[in-house]
């Protein structure tokens, strides 16, 4: 069994791991990466990227359906779901190749196989070609997370699927029950509904996208309902059993017969089988406990991304990867600002938010001024024919501090960043309103919502 020495070994090459590896290499460290799947992790292969490809298909299909609104008459069209999935696979494949290219460019060695810690600085890699040992000055764990289920509900990826199964689904089912109306649940609801699947969205909490601002939840529920998606909130799934066209979902009184069930109830950190127990690495609520420099309770052992705790977002993992790499290289990196991580959901209309919701800001005792601006009053949105949604800006009444921003509407996930930059710079409402926004753009809605918080909106 060969032993290889490196400055840093990175276990897992998702968005956290590959970014950490590249940043380490940039800082002059020799880097080994360990991956038991394609480089890029869940994000590139089974998560963010392929679902975005499917959502784009959903958008195109839906646009075709509205072709007549633009004066385009189609004599019928066929939307092939299998081909949508094939396209998403090609997209994922291309992105994974991109990571492989970046590894080569940065002289990062990839060890295919499963990594296990034998000591705090020794990783054993078990691959198809046997076992190898990596010895490193520092080890970064970035093994990510996997879909959770509910007690008593087994995910077989055939009838009861997770997001992993959903992106591989070669055929769209006729009907599906989606358990959990968080980001994953509502994105797949959008995809399936666009392809004519009968979708029932189930949520235990009283509203869809429950972590978002309440007004955003209401707006999404309204547009989803209009598109024929059945939403049941405040319901508990008692059991999922085989039956009917595929499965019977028992909601405690009501029975739901569907072809497939998608479990989208959250994700759990992958911390088992890594050898953490033997080293005494401390966990906290199932996640690895880390310092602001991303170091675990064991000196020289770092953890980043989903396994290191909420929010479970690729861009948070990337930011943590940079911090860990710089800490290992002896720099003193600025810690990740967890209060300023944008959260994005790519269903139609898109949802993006940063900072506090209105309810949380008020609970925190802030005097809040609220600004709102609907896309119906935005020229670009009207021209595009995408007028659903609004921008909502929450600010401290006294100082104009931007406490939170909630956007639902076209390209919401692109618009959010001016507020992310603003909050990093500690800009207040005034700096936003004195920034000239190009016309016509969707971002003008951001400006107008900010003006509205000061009672000065022009276009409404």
């Amino acid at each position, binding site marked *: 069994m060969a032993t290889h020495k490196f400055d840093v070994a990175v276990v897992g090459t998702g968005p956290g791991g590959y970014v950490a590896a590249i940043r380490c290499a940039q800082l002059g460290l020799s880097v080994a990466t360990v991956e038991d799947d394609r480089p890029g992790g869940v994000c590139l292969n089974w998560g963010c990227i392929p679902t975005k490809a499917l959502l784009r298909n959903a958008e195109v299909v839906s646009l075709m359906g509205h072709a007549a609104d633009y004066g385009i008459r189609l004599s019928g069209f066929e939307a092939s779901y299998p081909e949508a999935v094939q396209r998403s696979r090609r997209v994922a494949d291309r992105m994974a190749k991109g990571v492989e290219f970046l590894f080569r460019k940065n002289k990062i060695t990839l060890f295919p196989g499963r990594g296990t810690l034998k000591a705090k600085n020794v990783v054993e890699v078990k691959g198809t070609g046997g076992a190898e040992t990596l010895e490193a000055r520092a080890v970064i764990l970035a093994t990510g997370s996997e879909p959770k289920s509910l007690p008593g509900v087994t995910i077989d990826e055939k009838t009861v699927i997770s997001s992993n199964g959903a992106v591989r689904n070669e055929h769209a089912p006729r009907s599906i029950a989606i358990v959990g109306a968080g980001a994953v649940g509502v994105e797949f609801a959008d995809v399936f509904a666009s392809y004519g699947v009968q979708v029932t969205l189930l949520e235990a909490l009283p509203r869809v996208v429950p972590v978002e601002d309440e007004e955003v939840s209401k707006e999404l529920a309204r547009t989803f309902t209009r598109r024929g998606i059945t939403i049941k909130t405040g319901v508990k799934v008692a059991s999922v059993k085989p039956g009917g066209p595929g499965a019977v979902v028992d909601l405690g009184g009501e029975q739901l017969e569907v072809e497939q069930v998608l479990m989208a109830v959250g994700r759990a950190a992958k911390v088992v089988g890594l050898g953490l127990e033997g080293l005494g690495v401390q966990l906290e609520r199932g996640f690895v406990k880390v*310092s602001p*420099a991303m170091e675990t309770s064991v000196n020289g052992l770092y953890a980043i991304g989903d396994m290191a705790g909420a929010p479970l977002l690729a861009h948070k993992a990337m930011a943590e990867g940079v911090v860990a790499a710089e*800490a290992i290289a002896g720099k*003193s990196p*600025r810690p990740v600002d967890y209060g300023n991580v944008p959260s994005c959901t790519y269903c139609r209309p898109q949802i993006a938010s940063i900072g506090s919701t209105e309810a949380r800001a008020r609970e925190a005792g802030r005097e809040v001024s609220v600004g709102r601006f609907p896309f119906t009053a935005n020229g670009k949105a009207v021209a595009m024919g995408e007028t659903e949604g609004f921008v909502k800006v929450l600010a401290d009444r*006294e*100082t*104009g*501090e931007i406490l939170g921003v909630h956007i639902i509407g076209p390209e919401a996930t692109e618009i959010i960043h001016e507020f992310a930059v603003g909050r990093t*710079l*500690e*800009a*207040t409402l*005034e*700096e936003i309103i004195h920034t000239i926004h190009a016309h016509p753009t969707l971002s003008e809605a951001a400006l107008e919502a900010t003006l509205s918080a000061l009672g000065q909106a022009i276009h409404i």
Partner: protein
Amino acid sequence: MAVTKVVMPKLSDAMESGKIIKWLKKEGDRINGGDILAEVETDKADVEMEAFGAGVLRKILVPAGETAPIGALIGVIAEPGDDIAAVVASAPATPAGAASAAAPASRPPAATPSAPVAPVARPAAVVSAPAAPTSLGQGTQSGRVKASPLAKKIAAQTGVDLRLIQGSGPGGRIIRRDVEAAESGAAASAMPATARPAAVSGAEFEDVPLTQIRAAIARRMPLSKAPVPHFYVTSEVAMDRAWELREQLNALEGQPKISVNDLVIRACALALLRHPGVNASLQGDAIRVYHRAHIGIAVALDAGLITPVLRDCHAKPLAQIAVEARDLVERARNRKLRAQELSGATFSISNLGMFDVAEFSAIINPPEGAILAVGSVRRVPVVDDAGLGVGRRMMLTISCDHRVMDGAMGARFLQDVKRLLEEPLRLLV
């Protein structure tokens, strides 16, 4: 064309601006590199400013008595025929001038790197009224201080003076948490400088403008006392033998006079080598342990306290420490210290023995990890095997940064200092 811009130099670590005490050259004088151009009062001391380029001092932009931030253009050296209009135009207008002149529309590219856009604030101007300034007023007033918009608004509302705060953001930018920390924790010590408008008529007090040193102390001490968790360890030292030794040494002809403080410096230097954990400093997520003892000696001036640094004390015999310490203190009093003598201490000693002080505790000067406060050598009744007698005793109190060290470390260090002073021949070997 050789146009040399004369800018306010950074003469010490903490320096943010300097005041021109006087120009030693006048416009039209020929300058050679290395000539002393002016005397500058920094937050720590008065320092002479050397010329870098050669030529004729064509223009003085900041007259004596005015303050300029570091990097600000304060003069221009050029040959008589050179056109200096563009360089001069790139400078901010006179300090009292409007901030609108600070950013000329078209500035020659060559002039940008060092020319600050910040206007110079008048030293006595202090933000005090809780009323929020208008947005335009904010812009002009804010020029000198690097602070986020939110920090400025909170400061304006709470009356915190941004000039007294050290920023923790990128490049020292003052951000919200700095203002909030200053407001909650250190407000009390920063406040004396802040003039609150009197509610009733009649002058009940006067506001003395801060000297540069006072302003630096006011800015830095809250940053030490509030975020640095201090703990204190006090020990009494029998100084009879040290006193006797000192008298013998001082009776020697041709030898430098030794003070009690010199003995303490020497004892500390030796003890620091043995207790490197005390000769240490918190650096983010690491503790930097120094292998050399650079000791800051606190010197009280009328304008405030400064701490010149005696380097490599561990490697210097007592006589050399005595000579160099005396020289440092004297030059500190005459404000003739060189810039490099004001920074780099790894430990400090503050001695108030001359004021008949039994004991006191001092505030750590970050990033140092500890400071020793030295009281007077007093004659006190002591009980020993022979019964009641009179002895010389001195109280030492060490203030330690608890993030860097624990009580036992401070105590062991102090024990060693005490032993060295009680067996003072050890100071000579």
